């Protein structure tokens, strides 16, 4: 049967400031088909979807290469609202619902049914009154189409999470010309049973001729509902396959697998570590978007311990929680001494330091000079760079000592700046990261937490940052806990790597373990099954 595919994306490519994030991505999607889009964080999934929706960010950063064809006609959307008009709906990972509105009101947000009255003639259409009975009818219809149990009058704030997700999808369904629905990790927040209902609903929609792009890292779900999958890695299509011709294990391999030259590079065969320095028992951390539920591990003196996992699974919460930046509970010991959680000063004084993943938000005083950034923590927690005047009554900031110390760090880390007086905001990302490292080093910690040290910086700087960490570890014996989304990076530097999934450690592996093992841990599917057998599903269901 020769028909034009509903959606065809041809040779899509995209660069951000000379940084290639997508290259030559092509695929087609037929009417009523469900496409599973998988890939690690940063593989280019969201950029691809941003292009499809004409998000302003794409236009602002120089547009994209290639073509998007909808029903055989080339389309260019200037705005996500244009995409909506063309019949493409987007269900976000974060809820975009009005909290105090009922399901009906949210489903019909800005598309309400209205009734005419004469004031419209003077003041415009927005003075039409709402036709509530009709609105309810439409909402009920959308809910029925989705096949879920949802009270149209329930207020969003009173809804369980799953119902919020249904509301959001029903909103897209209500559009008359809905042809294509993009679901971005819709099941991430759902309970098992709710996820099943949603998947059933998706199948029903597909049967009615609505095509879908389903983004999820729960591969089993992809296997369950999708007709075919597209695996992206580093902005390229790695594999396009029919779902029934592949397996979870195979997909996991495609997602994370890559050439392993770097990891194999000069690693001392046997490194000897001391006693456990950091002991973490049943840690939970309430960090928005990175919740840690129950994590236990030990890090030994002199070790570089890696924490990996997909975004949003809680790997970032561990360091932030131990350093007291977010509400946390459980037991943490540094050496023998217990660490009081929720008190950053205590954690710092105990001899730990932290390089935050949120460089500009938490890591830096953007408006202040580099010098301040480097010495601030040491000055405040250890009274370094302070001169006592009047017999200790006045703790005077010793600007000379500060300048000297920061000069050392600037030289050692090759921070490119005009002087230590330059404001941090004026530096490039890589140099800002080095300032953050210098700040942590200035505390002279026993244990250093580093989160996403290479995010958003260029290749040369990446190398330098990693080398610096390695050198610090080797020369000063600093124990390092490094959190990163980039598995390669972890494998190149760490002695052991823990993988976090859904707020728990799903396994700890040596860096030399096969890449597929990491992939399976990240996706929460342990075991040796091929992904289609019951055993796999059982493990998954147990969560």
């Amino acid at each position: 049967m020769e028909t034009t595919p509903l959606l065809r994306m041809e040779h899509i490519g995209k660069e951000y400031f000379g940084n290639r994030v997508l290259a030559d991505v092509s695929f087609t999607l037929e009417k009523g088909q469900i496409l599973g889009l998988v890939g690690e964080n940063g593989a280019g999934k969201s950029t691809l979807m941003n292009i499809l929706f004409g998000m302003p960010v794409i236009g602002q950063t120089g547009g994209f290469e290639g073509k998007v064809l909808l029903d055989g006609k080339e389309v260019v959307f200037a705005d996500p609202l244009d995409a909506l008009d063309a019949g493409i709906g987007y269900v976000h990972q974060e809820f975009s619902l009005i909290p105090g509105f009922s399901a009906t009101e949210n489903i019909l947000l800005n598309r309400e049914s209205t009734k005419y009255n004469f004031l419209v003639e003077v003041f415009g259409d927005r003075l039409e009154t709402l036709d509530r009975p009709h609105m309810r009818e439409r909402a009920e219809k959308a809910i029925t189409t989705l096949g879920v149990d949802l009270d149209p009058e329930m207020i969003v704030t009173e809804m369980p999470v799953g119902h919020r997700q249904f509301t959001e999808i029903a909103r897209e369904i209500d559009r008359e010309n809905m042809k294509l629905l993009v679901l971005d990790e819709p099941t991430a927040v759902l309970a098992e049973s709710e996820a099943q209902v949603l998947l059933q609903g998706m199948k029903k929609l597909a049967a009615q001729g609505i095509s879908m792009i389903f983004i999820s890292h729960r591969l089993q779900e992809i296997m369950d509902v999708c007709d075919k999958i597209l695996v992206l890695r580093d902005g390229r299509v790695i594999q396009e396959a029919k779902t029934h011709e592949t397996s979870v294990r195979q997909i996991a391999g495609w997602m994370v697998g890559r050439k392993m030259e770097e990891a194999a590079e000069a690693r001392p065969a046997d490194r000897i570590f001391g006693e456990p320095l950091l002991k973490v028992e049943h840690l939970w951390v309430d960090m928005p978007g990175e919740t840690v539920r129950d994590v236990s591990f030990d890090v030994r003196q002199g070790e570089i311990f890696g924490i990996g996992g997909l975004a949003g699974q809680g790997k970032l919460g561990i360091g932030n929680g131990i350093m007291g930046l977010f509400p946390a509970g459980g037991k943490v010991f540094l050496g023998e001494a217990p660490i009081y959680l929720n008190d950053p000063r205590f954690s710092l004084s105990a001899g730990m330091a932290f390089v935050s993943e949120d460089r500009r938000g938490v890591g830096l005083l953007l408006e202040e000079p580099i010098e301040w950034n480097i010495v601030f923590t040491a000055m405040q927690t250890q009274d370094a760079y302070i001169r006592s005047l009047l017999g200790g009554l006045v703790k005077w900031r010793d600007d000379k000592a500060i300048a000297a110390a920061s000069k050392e760090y600037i030289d050692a880390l090759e921070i490119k700046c005009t002087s230590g007086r330059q404001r941090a905001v004026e530096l490039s990302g890589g140099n800002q990261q080095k300032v953050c490292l210098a700040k942590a080093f200035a505390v002279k910690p026993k244990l250093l937490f580093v989160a996403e040290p290479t995010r958003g910086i260029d290749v040369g700087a990446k190398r330098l940052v990693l080398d610096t960490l390695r050198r610090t570890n080797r020369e000063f014996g600093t124990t390092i806990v490094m959190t990163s989304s980039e598995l390669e990076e972890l494998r190149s530097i760490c002695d052991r790597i823990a993988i976090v999934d859904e707020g728990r450690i799903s396994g700890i592996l040596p860096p030399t373990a096969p890449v597929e093992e990491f992939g399976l841990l990240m996706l929460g599917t342990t075991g040796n099954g091929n992904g289609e057998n019951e055993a796999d599903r059982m493990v998954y269901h147990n969560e």
Partner: protein
Amino acid sequence: MKAYTTKEKIQHLLISNAVPIIFILMSAIAIPLSGFSPTYLVQEMLIRLARNSFLVLSLIIPILAGMGLNFGMVLGAMAGQVGLILVSDWAVVGIRGLLLAAMIATPIAIALGYVCGAVLNRAKGREMVTSYILGFFVNGLYQLAVLYAFGKVIPISNSELVLSRGFGIRNAINLAGMRHALDYLVPLKIGNLNVPVGTYLTIGLFCLFIVWFRRTKLGQDMRAIGQDMHVAGAAGIPVEKTRIIAIIISTVLACYGQIIFLQNIGTLNTYNSHDQAGMFAIAALLIGGATVSKATIPNVFLGVILFHMMFVVSPMAGKQLMGQAQIGEYFRVFISYGIIAISLALHAWKRQKDRERARRSLRGEA
């Protein structure tokens, strides 16, 4: 959803209505102290309800749109005063004068409201303090106009309005020709009480308007924006435009409110009438149990009655209690400002707590 016990319900009711309850108690103590007769107080409340309700009601729509208390309503009051000054000069009297004043003031109020809305769009998240300062700023411009332009650029023929130097408007303008023109448009007397029926009808109409407005698409959009600006924007609702409309409506209504207020008083204090309008309206609304993010029509009426009850009673009560009427007068000033301070603080505090609670609900069960 868990069911609440009766005790919890009562507790909740008491806590969420703490401000009105405290005021009712305070009035209960102060009324006997003041020694005013019930008839006098009822008459006084009837008048004040008519006088102030409209101004207070004008605050509701920006609250609906999530812009907080519109301290910029004084802009509308100023527009109304400009209308009244011109109409006084032209010696158009009675209800026709009021209507004409409203018609002249409307375009001015719309223009000022637009400016105010546009300014507030540049200061999202601190609308209140910005609209407050904007009120002062425009007050400067108003004085510039009234003191220097009137009589020079804008001809004023009636010498009773103009300062002796030949231009600029006098401090107080007698609105004798328009006094009570709306109040007693429909005459009604119950016993000794004069009931300002005309004004009540107008206020009633306006309440119907608010109820109706909340059911329009525009009202719905404002509610959406008030709750979550970003979601509303993502759904294609023109956020900034709608916010400007909300402020324009509020400003225009405040302008009418001020005209109604002044026709009841009968004298226009050219340089301070509008200043007090904003503060009293906001204090009354808050005393009625409204918050920065939620206000209903009953809040308005309850607030006006409670606030003005205290207003009338406190000087006399102060005199009886402390031997000085002055104390009572300062006391009511203190209450007006204090209640605004406390309400704002409670609201900000509650918001902070809510944010924390929302976070906690996401926390793992461990």
